[in-house]
């Protein structure tokens, strides 16, 4: 448990460090993370509904690792595209903020670890 909390805390410190180093206001940087994820999910819903056939059809289908791999690939691609979009929308010019997709994935892994322990 302590390890997960330490990881979450270190991600927050990492976030502040990026904000300081890139001279981007912290408020804008904090806004970038949920916005990136939301836009990614939004784009994800287009691609999945068009190319895979929607959430229900995947969940109800028999287990096929290819489905999951394709879904993961689409999701990660959406995160990268939306990160670029969000950087431009929020007028963030620093190259450091481009690390936000990686940071997002890092946070997702940490939240996953935390949730699995807490549940």
């Amino acid at each position, binding site marked *: 448990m302590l390890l997960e909390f330490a990881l979450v805390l270190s991600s927050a410190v990492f976030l502040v460090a990026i904000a300081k180093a890139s001279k981007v206001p912290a408020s804008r940087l904090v806004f970038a993370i949920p916005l990136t994820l939301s836009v990614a999910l*939004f784009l994800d819903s287009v691609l*999945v509904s068009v190319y895979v056939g929607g959430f229900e059809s995947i969940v109800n289908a028999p287990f096929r690792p290819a489905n999951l791999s394709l879904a993961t690939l689409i999701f990660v691609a959406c995160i990268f595209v939306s990160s670029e979009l969000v950087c431009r929308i929020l007028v963030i010019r620093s190259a450091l903020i481009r690390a936000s997709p990686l940071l997002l994935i890092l946070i997702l892994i940490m939240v996953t670890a935390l949730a*699995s322990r807490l549940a």
Partner: protein
Amino acid sequence: MLRSIWYLDPRLLPAVNTDELLYISAGSQYLAGLQRGNFTAFQFNAEHPPLSKILTALSVNLGGYVRLPALISMRILDAALGALTCMLLFVLLLRVSRKIAYIGWILLAADPISIRYATASLDVTMTFFLMLFSFLLVSRKYPLAGVVGGLATLSKYPAIAAVMLSALFLLASGDVRGIQALRRLAVVGFPLVLVIFIGDPILWPSQIIGYSGIAVLNSATSSTLLGGATTFFSFLAEGLRSSNAQAQMNLLQFFGLYLTVFYFPFFTSSYLPWTFSASLLDRARRRVGLSQVETAMLAWFCGLMLVLWLITKKGDYYVITLMPPLAAFSATSLSKLIGTKGNAT
């Protein structure tokens, strides 16, 4: 009429949904319970907060005076709240420009999915209060915004995410910093929390209501969500704990799919997601900053999108709560397009 045109459906009124009957019944029980001081009524349909259902019951009672059927009274209230949401968006966008306000109003008023699911009572009420909250927040009426944010949460719980993110981002990106921003946040947050706790008897101490409200809430929520899991992270926890290899694989697959596949089929049900996507691309190309109205709308969109992603219950009609932010953004970009064409000709 619009419903008939959009869906080529000859029926002016949609078919009855079981939820509608449930909310009428729940609202009537809550009202009767409040009159008698008996809070056990709030155990019924406890997975949703009571405000929208109480408003429905009041509307049904009022309609009863002119002998309107309960279902019609309920739908009149929902239609009125939906129409008021469009008007509030118009008033909010007037702060940017009159042209954008008209475009936004038309886009939202004619949105097919909002018309189709105008009978989703809780979502319609939540959307109305969220719209009012955004308007008050941008107008800097902070205590009142907190109260209305509380009312939105009392209509449906996911509203709290949109309310909190809107308040945080708008105050953090505003003209004040540090302690002053925190003070402002407290001015919004205090009435918000107060209204939620006063307005939802299920959150009151067991000494007052005679039972453990939190236990009832947990039990009601678990029974309506997939596998009793509130968020998809539970599938991971269960999967890791399971000793059965097949069950483990299924649970981990569910976790992976919930994590990576977003479910909304709304791209085939409305034009707003398309215009919003075009608007985002347009903004990325022009590299313009966000106004306060746009920040509030985007925070609303982010908050609800993330909550709807995390929870395991997925309903097509949930999407109507995302439509006002999409309409606001689309209106800004469309107004530029119309302006450019006008200049060219």
